[in-house]
């Protein structure tokens, strides 16, 4: 079963899986990577960035474009989405993966933000999410719209937050769906951890 949430072509998607790189460049060419500059500028000694640093990093690198910078909670969510070692921080490779995913979502958002206002309405949001492959029940769409819209509009920042949550939940589920049938047996403790780590 194919799982949704992959960004549209053009956004790229690192099949990655590297851990965070401690300290300086871990392989030749990393230092020349333009993204490494932004990362290193905020990362500090340990080569890991936390939510505050990620917020600064993404703002400086211009991913939000003309839109206002990501709020801290969204940054925290993004870290938890890729934070494989549960450290609450991202290494450079995880950061690159994040960048690629968010770039994809940005392209996607832009294609639905027809008036370039930086917001989409409920219908556009539903279409955008369905287009990404998320099969959402009507109750789910209602809950999402209620949570993320202000005066009926959803901003880029909130759209990202929504995508991050949906993707993180999907990842959570997919990792446990060992037979790839679209069903998982959850133990209580595991379910709680899964859901509350989002």
């Amino acid at each position: 079963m194919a799982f949704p949430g992959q960004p549209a072509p053009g956004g790229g998607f690192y099949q990655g899986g590297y851990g965070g790189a401690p300290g300086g460049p871990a392989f030749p060419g990393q230092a020349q990577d333009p993204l490494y500059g932004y990362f290193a500028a905020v990362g500090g000694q340990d080569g890991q960035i936390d939510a505050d640093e990620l917020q600064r990093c993404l703002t400086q690198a211009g991913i939000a474009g003309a839109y206002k910078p990501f709020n801290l909670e969204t940054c925290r969510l993004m870290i938890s989405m890729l934070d494989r070692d549960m450290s609450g921080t991202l290494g450079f490779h995880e950061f690159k993966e994040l960048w690629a995913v968010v770039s994809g979502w940005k392209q996607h958002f832009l294609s639905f933000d027809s008036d370039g206002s930086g917001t989409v309405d409920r219908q556009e949001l539903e279409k955008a999410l369905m287009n990404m492959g998320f099969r959402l029940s009507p109750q789910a769409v209602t809950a999402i719209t209620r949570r993320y819209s202000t005066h009926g509009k959803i901003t880029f920042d909130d759209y990202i937050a929504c995508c991050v949550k949906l993707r993180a939940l999907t990842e959570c589920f997919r990792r446990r769906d060992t037979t790839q049938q679209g069903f998982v047996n959850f133990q209580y403790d595991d379910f709680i951890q899964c859901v509350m780590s989002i």
Partner: protein
Amino acid sequence: QGFPGAPPGGSYPGAPPYGGAPYGQPGSGPYGGPQPGPYGGAAPGGNVPPGVDPEAFSWFQAVDADHSGYISVKELKQALVNSNWSTFNDETCLLMINMFDKNRSGRIDVYGFSALLRFIQQWKNLFQQYDRDQSGSISFNELQQAFTQMGYNLSPQFSQLLLARYGQHSPSPSIQLDRFIHICMQLQSTTDAFREKDTALVGNVRLSYEDFLTMVVTRML
């Protein structure tokens, strides 16, 4: 008054696999008590609405910066602080507005605010109870203890996860009041959602991808 029930004072007996009912009163029905009436912003300082604590009233007036008669998430955030003087985080404020917002307007009136303050005070008392070393925040051990006393049966990894996610990045991360409230409320919601599906009470449920998404999205956002 029908507002969400207070957190418990002690532990609950007879726990099924995932712990018993942690809290007394379920649900958050519309509040009874006196009708809100035309409070508006025009009332002079002296006229405390019936059923509202005078201190809560003056606090409300101070927080309701635009005198609209309602408090938004943003205004609420300014009013609530943790022991380390950080303002309550957005998520907790949103959760609280949703809980005490009778008509889904995204804001609360003076009655909602008054009830919210009582609710927070009860949580604060509980928080202070679990903060055994009175440090102002809850450590790993204290969090484990708190969950056990609330009747939950959860692994240490779970507490570890919460501290990594919500604690500060120090040698011994700990949780502030706002996150503690948020965590406990989400834990209750999630447990309720799980229990709804686990009709046989075996501590295990089989979920399709869509069911899983719907369950979580409708309860956790």
